[in-house]
């Protein structure tokens, strides 16, 4: 069976991203390893408590990994909101909205009734798009 273990988001600043994902979203720090012999590459991952999946908070590299023009394009795409999307679920969208809002998460959509459940949206500091959904089946269970 295939399982999704780790996925990646581009971030503009790893320290800022780490603070956002752990302090505001309440995720766990999974690994934070800086490798001197790899040009101080920093492998930084976080994940939601109780779940195996991790998200790599990946700095946008420069040459020789990524040429400067491409790196600028990726930075700009992330800033425009076209680089990444994550779909989160919650058992109570309104409560999560209140909780995250109180910690300073800026929502782009308040919780609203949709055919598939109650849905809201926010962005991380880099522009990655998050949906936060109380899926209909969960709500009715």
């Amino acid at each position, binding site marked *: 069976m295939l399982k999704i273990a780790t996925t990646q988001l581009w971030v*503009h*600043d790893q*320290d*800022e991203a780490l603070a956002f994902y752990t302090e505001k979203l309440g995720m766990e720090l999974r690994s934070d390893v800086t490798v001197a012999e790899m040009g101080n590459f920093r492998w930084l991952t976080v994940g939601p408590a109780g779940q195996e999946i991790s998200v790599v908070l990946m700095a946008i590299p420069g040459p020789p990994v990524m040429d400067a023009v491409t790196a600028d394009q990726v*930075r*700009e795409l*992330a*800033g*425009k*909101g076209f680089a990444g*999307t994550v*779909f989160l679920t919650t058992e109570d969208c309104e409560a999560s909205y209140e909780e995250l809002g109180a910690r300073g998460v800026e*929502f*782009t*959509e*308040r919780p*609203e009734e*949709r*055919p*598939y459940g109650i*849905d809201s*949206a926010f*962005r991380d*500091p*880099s*522009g990655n*798009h998050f*949906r936060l*959904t109380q899926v209909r089946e969960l709500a009715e269970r």
Partner: protein
Amino acid sequence: MAFVPPARHLLRAKDLADARYFEPLDVDDLARAAGLSRAHFSREFRRAFGESPHAYLLTRRLERAAALLRTTDRSVADVCVSVGLQSVGSFTTSFTRTFGVSPTAYRAAFPPAAVHALIPACVVHAYSRPQRSTFREDSVTTHG
């Protein structure tokens, strides 16, 4: 201080249009959200997203209006006000110019669309927003 590409500020303005289209929001409000002067903002927004902020806000409103026409039985006037537009006359004109049919005819052409129920709202918003390159109001913004 974290590095923030200029586009990130423009995205704040775009997000504001998506989040608060039902309020009496205008391009000045969007420019403020991006922290730019109105003229500079309109130029930079167009460069980043390929259309003027005015066109983006208006097509967001028309997209939401179309969704309300498809999924509710609210009157055209109610739909117009619900998406942040003031004048039913110019709403009907913009709508007809964009979708090729009047709001009433548009509604009649769409049976209830339960088949789309599982598609996330953001996808619906993104993919059903109409594209137009010839808003009269744009030329004012561009040359003004």
